[in-house]
């Protein structure tokens, strides 16, 4: 194994010797609203990816100055270190209550929460359910990785049946702990929810769709018609004890069986009129 010493600005160059830089058009670059630091996430973690997508939407909509995010307690607890927007760190599970406090006072701002499955569906289910029932005009970005990432791999409300975690060492026993909660389906039954969709980011196409969903959700906030819930099937290679590549396959092979992808509740045409 060879060790290289590199300074932090090093970039693997793509410069073509026989072709001037200017002749290339940049077609993808990290969004400008992302803070240019290395994120603390494990290799391959979907959190980082989704941060990027949210920032892309904020960038493209030009709403950096109108957006307030609410970070959760979970691996994404440092989200505000990476998103170059105003943010608040909520107590574990309380992001939706915090977002309610923000949005009710600034109805014209774009307010979103970013929450893990433990945060949103275990300790925070009450605040989530009530915010959605009230139809708070916020976007809830729900990162479902079927596990408590930050605290090192305990069972989450969304842990798959039979899935091993540190607190379900023999696999989740549904007869003991019940079935995984299908948050999106459940919440879509509340009249306060306006747009509910479940996406995954383990392939480029999923990433495209997820970004579109986030974009929709941000735009719908302008309508003041209810809560948007974008569930994203994330991953947790570290606690799933897989490589990121294996984890991507696990999403396809297992996660989507319990959490099928796609729109769950979409606004009707007439709902989209202001």
């Amino acid at each position: 194994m060879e060790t290289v010493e590199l300074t932090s600005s090093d970039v693997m160059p793509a410069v073509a010797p026989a072709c001037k830089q200017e002749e290339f058009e940049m077609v993808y670059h990290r969004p400008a609203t992302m803070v240019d630091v290395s994120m603390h996430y494990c290799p391959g973690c979907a959190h980082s990816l989704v941060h990027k997508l949210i920032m892309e939407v904020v960038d493209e909509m030009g709403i950096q100055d109108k957006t307030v995010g609410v970070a959760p307690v979970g691996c994404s607890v440092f989200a505000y270190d990476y998103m170059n927007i105003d943010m608040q760190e909520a107590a574990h599970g309380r992001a939706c209550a915090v977002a309610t406090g923000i949005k009710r006072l600034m109805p014209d701002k774009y307010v979103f929460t970013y929450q893990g499955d433990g945060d949103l569906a275990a300790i925070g289910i009450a605040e989530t359910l009530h915010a959605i029932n009230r139809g708070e005009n916020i976007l809830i970005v729900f990162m479902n990785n079927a596990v408590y990432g930050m605290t090192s791999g305990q069972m989450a409300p969304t842990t798959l049946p039979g899935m091993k975690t540190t607190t379900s060492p023999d696999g989740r026993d549904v007869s003991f702990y019940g079935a995984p909660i299908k948050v999106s389906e459940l919440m879509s039954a509340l009249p306060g929810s306006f747009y509910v969709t479940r996406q995954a980011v383990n392939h480029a196409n999923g990433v495209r769709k997820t970004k579109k969903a986030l974009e929709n959700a941000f735009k719908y906030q302008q309508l003041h018609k209810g809560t948007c819930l974008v569930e994203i099937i994330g991953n947790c290679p570290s606690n799933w004890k897989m490589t990121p590549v294996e984890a991507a396959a696990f999403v396809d092979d297992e996660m989507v069986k319990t959490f099928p992808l796609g729109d769950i509740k979409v606004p009707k045409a007439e709902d989209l009129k202001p």
Partner: protein
Amino acid sequence: MLEELIVAGFGGQGVLSLGMTLAYAGMVEEKEISWMPSYGPEMRGGTANCITIISDNKISSPIISQFDSAIVLNQPSMDKFAPRVKRGGLLLYESANILKPSTRTDIDIIGIPAATEALQMKNAKIMNMIVLGAYLHLKPVVKIDSILEALKKVLPEKYHHLLEINHQALMKGSELVHELAVF
């Protein structure tokens, strides 16, 4: 006897288990021990370390800031802990991962290419055991036999086939410093 040791490196380098194995061996020899890890998954991707104390007497504070010995396995740990080795103490490091060792002259600084050796032994994971072997050669706070006995106790039966390679690794580490002929 009182040995206050810090082991530090990247999360995946077996830092915690190096210290823990030593602690177990201390227990085999009925010494007093304490093992204190840096903890918290929030540290993920960062460095990990553990303080291992072995003593003939009851140990007071499990957390200390000055060490008799430091074993460092990456550059950030070198930078952080080298200054905290007590005058006259030992600083042992893995030389494939650390290009800029400390320049202190009041302590013993010894680098061994444990990672490279481990690769040659076709098992990157035993790097830490090579280092431990080296350390014990320099500071025989417990016997190699006690380490082996500890491993036997700690490893579940199904992993006992790994005892042999661990033994080899320990010996390899010992050899490496012996070759360096520092002492």
